[in-house]
């Protein structure tokens, strides 16, 4: 057993030593910077490898992936204290937890997948909250990467940052679709006034951008009809009376019997009332006649 441990630790040490060398041979120094357009602050080889795990297919057996991911985890952990106030560090840490979660999916380990996704979201939240503080520059690409797994409010915040930085799509159209995404999310979160304001901002920016408005006409009208007017439409739909479900024969017979019982009851009551009226009238008439005879 001891022998096995020694072998394992030797292998781990070798891999840790070889890993930076091999990755630097495979990758240019700028992988992280190219994709996320900011300086990673930490060792670029480390940031590059985490980026590669996130954005490319890793051609390594799962066992080796595990060893490498745990080694990366140790390295990141040792840097946590030093960089705890740096937004880009928390982004990289979150990305690494995402990679770990992804690995555990392959291992079919649901508890560890979930716990790493939780850590991923916590790290991304820290990164987003730190972004407005001085010295914490994040790019549109980073916000775009972070938003997917986050809860609604944080996703909205990340999208807003992405828009304010000009978006990160391969084309102009994506930027306007990002605006639509922002309006859509605000609307779904019930933040209707903010959604309307976001739409106004989009229209203003679109007008000032010099874009061909005839192209974007269909887009803006879709936003108005399908996104901003979504709730009233839903209300009007729900206010329409639902058609009554078809009744079967038994129910129909029961209803007819009920109706007959009601009819008989009404007839009896009416007959009683009529009889009492007739009897009162008869008694009164008899008394009147008797009084006349006496006179």
């Amino acid at each position, binding site marked *: 057993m001891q022998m096995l441990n020694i072998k394992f630790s030797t292998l781990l040490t070798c891999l840790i030593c070889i890993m930076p060398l091999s990755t630097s041979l495979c*990758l*240019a120094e*700028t*992988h992280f*910077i*190219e*994709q996320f*357009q900011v300086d990673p602050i930490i060792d670029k080889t480390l940031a590059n490898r985490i980026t590669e795990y996130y*954005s*490319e*297919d890793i051609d390594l057996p799962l066992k080796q992936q595990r060893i490498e991911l745990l080694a990366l985890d140790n390295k990141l952990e040792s840097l946590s204290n030093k960089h705890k106030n740096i937004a880009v560090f928390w982004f990289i840490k979150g990305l690494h937890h*995402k990679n770990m*979660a*992804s690995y555990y*999916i*392959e291992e079919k380990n649901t508890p560890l*997948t979930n716990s790493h*996704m939780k850590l991923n979201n916590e790290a991304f939240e820290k990164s987003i909250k730190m972004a407005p503080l001085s010295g914490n520059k994040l*790019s*549109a*690409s980073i916000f*775009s*990467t972070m*938003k*997917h*797994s986050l809860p609604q409010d944080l996703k909205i915040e990340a999208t807003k940052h992405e828009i*304010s*930085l*000009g*978006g*990160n*799509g*391969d*084309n*102009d*159209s*994506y*930027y306007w*679709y*990002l605006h*639509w*995404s922002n*309006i*859509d*999310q605000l609307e779904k979160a019930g933040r209707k006034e903010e959604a309307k304001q976001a739409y106004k901002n989009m229209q203003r920016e679109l007008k000032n*951008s010099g874009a061909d408005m005839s*192209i974007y006409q*269909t*887009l803006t009208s*879709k936003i108005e009809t399908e*996104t901003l007017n979504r709730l009233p439409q839903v209300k009007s739909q729900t206010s329409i009376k639902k058609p009554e479900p078809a009744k079967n024969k038994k129910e129909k017979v029961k209803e007819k019997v009920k109706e007959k019982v009601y009819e008989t009851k009404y007839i009896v009551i009416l007959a009683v009332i009529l009889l009492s009226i007739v009897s009162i009238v008869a008694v009164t008439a008899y008394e009147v006649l008797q009084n006349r005879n006496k006179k």
Partner: protein
Amino acid sequence: MLDKQHGTIKLLSEFSGDGRMLNSGYHWQSKLLDTNTKNRHQLIFRPAPFSHQPAVYKKGKGPKGKRRKYGGGTRNIDEKKYNPKFSYDITLTILENNKIVGTHKANLSMDRIDMIRQEYINHYDIKRYGRGENGNIPIPKRNEISSIPDKPEKLAGNPLTESQYKLIINDGMLDLAKKISMAYTNNLNKLKSEDSFYDLKMNKLNIPDNKLWVTSGWRNPERNEWYSNAVNGIHQRGGAVDLIIMAPANSRQSSIGYWVLWNALEEKKADINAYWQLESNGRPMTTREFKQDIEPANGIPDAFDKADHLHANVKY
């Protein structure tokens, strides 16, 4: 006329001479030719390509809040600055016994096709920044540059090029766009009529009726540089098209749309005979992202949740 970026005139024939920069342009006079000069009917010269510096460009918002995109480039908005239209005023003076006996004047001017070809020359041996290989995009022949064809009716969005030249290189992208659009529409209709499209958790999915929107077709090299890290990208050869689902970016509607689109393309693989990939943040989705469902965990594979467009190109 000469622009600062283009350096000095390079002479390819035996003509030589120093020029002078005047307010009206660069002035150069050849040496006196005599009947013994070979090829004197040819006045061949070209400006040296200006040094290309993509590193000077930045992404995101620039001064006055104007948006900047990918690697930079000019989007050909300021074509006079980065890809000026050259014209040459040629004066031929015929001398006899040192006396002028005749003068002929001509103006040689680049048209839009020349300007496009000049862009390819300027970007031919471009050094790629970051990872990947350097670019070597073929310089198109004059007859490969044509007027812009109509886009298929069912495709919304941008015209097949966003360049300001009002010309295009169409090397199969229009046919490809038509095939993709048809496959998507057919699959959408089929799934709607069958009403049996299920997510990974076996919940039935409502199929949203969203069109495809063309975002990019042919890109001139400057524009390509603005948008894409792929310096030798096939958009510049007129063989690629980018499409997005007409729904809010990364919404459930758009995720289902990409899933329907992807299935449609996989079903018609042999007919379409092209390459395609879903992209997010300028990178293709990984195999893992097509299987996993954690970003977010909503029953739809992550690749479709995170995609921001579909890139398709003809096979070269």
